[in-house]
């Protein structure tokens, strides 16, 4: 079954939080060595999907395979060993608040390799230079802006040159210049090292420019998938609404709620 050209296989995934069904049968194939983008409205479960792939959440049914390993059946140790081959950029950055920028980026190398200090220093400065923050190496995370924080987190995620990188919203909070730099960086990292990347992003233009393949999630399912070129000309109303950012259309902008006017007029009711 397992196709050698697929690095991550998501099969028939169901997941719910409480009563809320977040995924109702998601299938996804993430090809080895390519950049795959996952898009979808806010709250459609993109972050949740990345956490399922990383083995931090367990699905109700269905499975996720990474390089032939069933993530949710691994023993704790094996799961941690598998995670050494992955990098993840968290939506919130999630830097270690008690370590400086330098130490944050050095952390994966310190715990997983025996590299000499001089080598670690070189690699850290190289990664920080790539995200334009070499000069900020002695700052603590609390002293960084939101955009800087994510760039440091990005540097940390690629510190060990993992085989699979999961980027959760890498472009949020970046000015146009650093946005361009990050797009180039993600592309370069992918091409130079041949690693597999998954990008979750709302920035359609940037994401389309680097993605090899795109999945669009909506309503707990994969709504559409294809190459960026194919999706751009997709005539399905929902796909084109999303691709062209139109507010009105079949894809709901709102979290499920009762009718707006009756909600507003219903003053005496509880909130």
């Amino acid at each position: 079954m397992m196709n050698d050209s697929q690095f991550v296989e998501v099969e028939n995934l169901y997941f719910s939080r409480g009563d809320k069904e977040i995924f109702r049968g998601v299938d996804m194939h993430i090809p080895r060595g390519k950049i795959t983008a996952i898009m979808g409205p806010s709250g459609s479960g993109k972050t949740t999907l990345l956490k399922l792939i990383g083995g931090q959440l367990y699905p109700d049914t269905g499975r996720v395979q990474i390089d032939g390993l069933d993530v949710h059946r691994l023993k704790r140790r094996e799961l941690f060993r598998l995670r050494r081959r992955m990098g993840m950029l968290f939506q919130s950055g999630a830097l270690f608040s008690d370590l400086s920028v330098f130490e944050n980026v050095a952390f994966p190398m310190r715990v997983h390799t025996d590299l000499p200090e001089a080598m670690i220093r070189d690699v850290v400065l190289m990664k920080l230079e790539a995200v334009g923050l070499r000069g900020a190496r002695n700052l603590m995370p609390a002293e960084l802006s939101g955009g800087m924080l994510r760039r440091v987190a990005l540097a940390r995620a690629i510190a060990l040159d993992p085989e699979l990188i999961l980027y959760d919203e890498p472009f949020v909070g970046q000015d146009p210049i650093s946005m361009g730099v990050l797009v180039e960086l993600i592309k370069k990292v992918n091409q130079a090292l041949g690693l597999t990347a998954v990008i979750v992003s709302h920035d359609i233009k940037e994401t389309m420019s680097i993605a090899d393949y795109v999945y669009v999630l909506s309503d707990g399912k994969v709504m559409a998938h294809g190459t960026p070129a194919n999706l751009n000309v997709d005539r399905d109303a929902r796909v084109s609404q999303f691709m062209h950012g139109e507010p009105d259309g079949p894809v709901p902008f709102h979290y499920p709620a009762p009718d707006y006017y009756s909600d507003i007029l219903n003053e005496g009711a509880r909130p």
Partner: protein
Amino acid sequence: MIKQRIASLGKSTLDTFESLGRATIFLCQASIGIPGKEGFHLWLRQMHFIGVMSLAIVLVSGLFIGMVLGLQGYTILVDFGAEDALGQMVSLSLLRELAPVVAALLFAGRAGSALTAEIGLMKATEQLSSMEMIGVDPLRRVVAPRLWAGFVSLPLLTIGFSVVGIWGGYLVGVDWLGVNEGSYWSNMQASVSFIDDVGNGLLKALVFALVVTWIAVFQGYDLVPTSEGISRATTRTVVYSSLAVLGLDFVLTTLMFGEL
């Protein structure tokens, strides 16, 4: 109505057992830290934050409690003309009861709450998740050193508490109220048994250390990752560990000193 009550009672019982089960699995997984020099360094760092930083409050409290014991003991004993036994009274109360219990209560308030809040904040800001994704088990790297540091510090703090307390009793009894210095020490030496009193007191301290630190790190690790969740868990740490310490103290005292 009644059916509903029974159902909710059943549910809360199940929930309690479930979280006890989780806490036990958690303790097993977190008891093994990172081996070698690195693990030792992590532990040493926590010894500083947990043990050394609690030293001041524990020693000062020990001094005051010893002084109060000296004063109270003297006023009672002097009525029977038995003020020479002050040393015995102060040292036995401290070694058997007051040092382990009061040090554990102070420790829960000073170090336990800080542990819960710290681990909880790391969880709320996804630092624990990102550590997992880097391939490092936070149970071994974050929780285990803290667990062991707490387990080792509290007994040491308890010893410090006793020593300072006995000295406080001496200050008040001998220096201030005029109890004979020789009889203060010799009565103490004659009546304190190393195994029964010092040993049992330390055993209590070890049990309290395990329970308080376990509660603190588990509450931090298991909390709902919001600011409200952190504040609740911190409160729970102090309440649960204080109750656990006092309850266990009764049980242990019955077992240790019951038939004396």
